[in-house]
């Protein structure tokens, strides 16, 4: 659990294209975990976007937060904050931040993507351990786990044949992980306040032990211009779960 359901979900949702992501979007999800065959709601996951301006540039701030429902806080409190500052046109990350609190365990990470596009300066601080700093090389198209989620929404799945795949690379825990997204066709899914929507069903596989099973990690993206993740199902070594969209605004 410590590797966090949220983290897994982040791994699931991410991929590539040209940005049609707007500022001030807000998607709220209910995260559930399968316990003895019953989906039990654990937490609320919120994905938000806003614009951040510096003296020289304007960036898109993508944030994903996971908070356990109040009734769970006394048993296993989660307060995770994942953020990415990206170029609003290309969604190329400039900075990625992760601040997690899961049942008393804490971890903070910051990746600064150097302007050369091929190097990351990372700072990591885990509970009861000294802060570590590292510089490591990455590919020019490497995304962080937050921005890849939004990149996925820029892929034009309407031109994909069933079974067609697209590859990406993400950086997570200071390692590059290849991610393959497979288009699996169209299906109708419940999209919270948007009602039932026709969706692109995509399967995510990553070369990591965090995800299990073939075509068990799935995302349903609304088959419209916004491509909102309406439903996310994941399979991890300790079980399965899902994120269901409750509300979407600012689209």
């Amino acid at each position: 659990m410590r590797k966090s359901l949220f983290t897994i979900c982040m791994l699931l949702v991410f991929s590539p294209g040209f940005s049609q992501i707007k500022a001030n979007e807000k998607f709220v999800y209910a995260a559930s975990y399968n316990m003895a065959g019953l989906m039990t709601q654990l937490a609320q996951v919120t994905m938000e976007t806003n614009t951040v301006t510096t003296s020289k540039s304007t960036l898109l701030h993508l944030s994903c937060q996971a908070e356990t429902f109040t009734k769970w806080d006394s048993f296993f409190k989660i307060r995770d904050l994942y953020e990415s500052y990206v170029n609003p046109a290309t969604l190329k990350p400039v900075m990625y931040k992760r601040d997690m609190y899961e049942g008393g365990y804490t971890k903070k990470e910051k990746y600064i993507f150097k302007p050369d596009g091929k190097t990351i300066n990372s700072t990591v601080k885990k509970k009861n351990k000294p802060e570590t700093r590292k510089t490591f090389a990455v590919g020019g198209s490497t995304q962080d786990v937050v921005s890849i989620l939004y990149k996925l929404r820029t892929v034009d799945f309407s031109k994909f044949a069933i079974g067609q795949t697209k590859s990406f690379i993400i950086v997570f825990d200071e390692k590059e992980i290849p991610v393959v997204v497979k288009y699996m066709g169209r299906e109708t899914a419940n999209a919270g306040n948007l009602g039932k929507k026709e969706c692109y069903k995509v399967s995510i596989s990553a070369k990591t032990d965090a995800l299990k099973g073939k075509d068990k990690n799935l995302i349903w993206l609304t088959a419209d211009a916004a491509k909102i993740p309406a439903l996310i199902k994941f399979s991890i070594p300790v079980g399965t779960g899902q994120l269901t969209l409750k509300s979407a605004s600012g689209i």
Partner: protein
Amino acid sequence: MIMRKLIIVLAAVFAVIGVVFVFLPLGTLGLLPIGLALIFGFIAFKMSAEDQKRVPKVVLIIAALSLAGVIGKEVFIKDEVEVDKQFEQKKIESEKEAKKDLEELDGLE
């Protein structure tokens, strides 16, 4: 006779587990032990002679109350996230710190 006792023990164990689930935030998962407590409690009640029905009856009452507790929690207690001021403050500070770092990055370009 041994069978009756075994069924009463099973019913009592599941009833106790059911009571625990009423206080845990596990939602309808509590219906599993409560359901089993009701089934075993009912069987024990039927198997018992008139003067031996007291224990199965108590188990059935506990299971029924637990059932009401689980269903009541599901109906009346919504899944909500309370405003966590500390977390909200953390988000504000994180964005402030990020802006500072991004300004420094601008200086490097």
